[in-house]
């Protein structure tokens, strides 16, 4: 028995359903009843109930691609700020994907303070110690480009349904984007004017995420800036 519709706005403590459903994030069960625990949109898919949160910090989970900034280093790796209550740990061997002899090799040649790194969350333990890896192609230290930070809860809007928003941004904006689940986005492009336009578009998505017809408006805005031309 469901008490809300799909994609309906719910608030904490609101009754969503009664019966044997699979309760995912953003909801909890009390006896037979299922309640929402955050403000968000109820997503009901078959027997699964989850709430898409509209606010909140980034909480790392395995498999997420994040963009971190190196804030500290230690004997065998680095500590990365991942725009979350928790910091990320990146070992040299998880960056270089090989065994590293720490006695012979000076690891400071690979990353230094302030470097931006695209990484994947390898593991999160029950104490929320975050293990990162950055060995896959396209990951590791970022060279050039522009870094934008938005609210992590708005990241799904930046990607859009089946990547529609991301495609619009990349194609019309003539840029390449890398979106981290933690709300950080890297932009690379040839035309600085279009890069700035994409930055504006991202901030607009964050600001107007709750107003319908977003993809079309972003498309329109980018087309307009593009047609105005110039260098």
């Amino acid at each position, binding site marked *: 028995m469901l008490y809300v519709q799909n994609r309906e*706005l719910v*608030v*904490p*403590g*609101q009754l969503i359903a009664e019966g044997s459903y699979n309760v995912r994030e*953003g909801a*909890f069960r*009390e006896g037979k009843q299922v*309640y929402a*625990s*955050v*403000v968000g949109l109820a997503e009901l898919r078959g027997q699964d109930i989850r709430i898409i*949160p*509209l*606010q*909140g*910090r980034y*909480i790392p989970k395995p498999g997420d691609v994040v963009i971190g900034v190196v804030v500290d280093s230690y004997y065998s790796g680095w500590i990365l700020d991942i725009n979350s*209550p*928790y*910091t990320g740990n990146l070992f040299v061997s998880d960056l270089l994907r090989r065994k590293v002899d720490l006695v012979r090799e000076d690891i400071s040649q690979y990353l230094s303070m302030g470097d931006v790194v695209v990484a994947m969350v390898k593991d999160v333990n*029950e*104490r*929320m110690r975050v293990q990162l890896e950055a060995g896959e192609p396209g990951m590791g230290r970022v060279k050039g480009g522009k870094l934008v930070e938005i609210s992590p*809860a708005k990241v799904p809007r930046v990607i859009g349904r089946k990547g529609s928003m991301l495609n619009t941004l990349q194609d019309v904006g003539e840029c390449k984007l890398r979106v981290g689940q933690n709300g950080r986005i890297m932009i690379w492009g040839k035309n600085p004017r279009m890069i700035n336009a994409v930055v504006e578009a991202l901030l607009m998505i964050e600001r107007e995420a*709750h*107003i*319908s*017809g977003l993809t079309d*408006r972003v498309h329109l805005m980018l087309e307009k800036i593009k047609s105005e031309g110039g260098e």
Partner: protein
Amino acid sequence: MKKPEKLIENGKRLDGRVPDEMRPLKIEAGILERADGSAYVELGANKVLAAVYGPREMHPRHRQQPDTAVLRCRYNMAPFSVDERKRPGPDRRSVEISKVTREALESVLFLELYPRSVIDVFIEVLQADAGTRTAGINAASVALADAGVPMRDMVSSIAVGKIDDTIVLDLTKDEDQWGTTDMPIAMVPRKKLVTLLQMDGHFTKEEFGQALGLAFKACEQIYGIQRQALREKYAIKQEK
């Protein structure tokens, strides 16, 4: 102001309300740009602002709990919030209120989801007219939801008291001052659990039951306004 002869005349109180009537309540969610969550509450002449930050890294590090988040509350009155200037900074009263506020909110939060972190709640009283702790809890509860902190339910809060041998809801400063009893209550409306109950003065057993009944009914009403405040902020708007 001198003590008036009667606090209730012809069934009406000093401000014209009937005994079981609440002052007008206004709640607005998400008004602070830089806080993770915030709320502004007006309860009659009370004006209260609540801001929530976190979950974030706990500093000082030695206060981190390895298995859960920590909730920190600060109730603070602005120096200009009362008639006579209040000396700024924490005093005995606001330290106590901070503590009971924290305890009133703690039980609805899923703190165990965020080990080693802290959730900070700041409650600033800008204008006070009795019942600021209840207004603060109402505001903090909306602000926590606005920050996206997972909660079992909201917390709603109101004061009841006794003036001129009548049980009344939501006392003003004058009623609090000249009345005989003041009892702030906070509750989790869905499960009817009381998370804060303080009492200054006396009630008989019957009066206590009656007062609790009034408060429960008012909390339901506040609960509705709190949810509405959140709905208004997050509703999906149609393109103009």
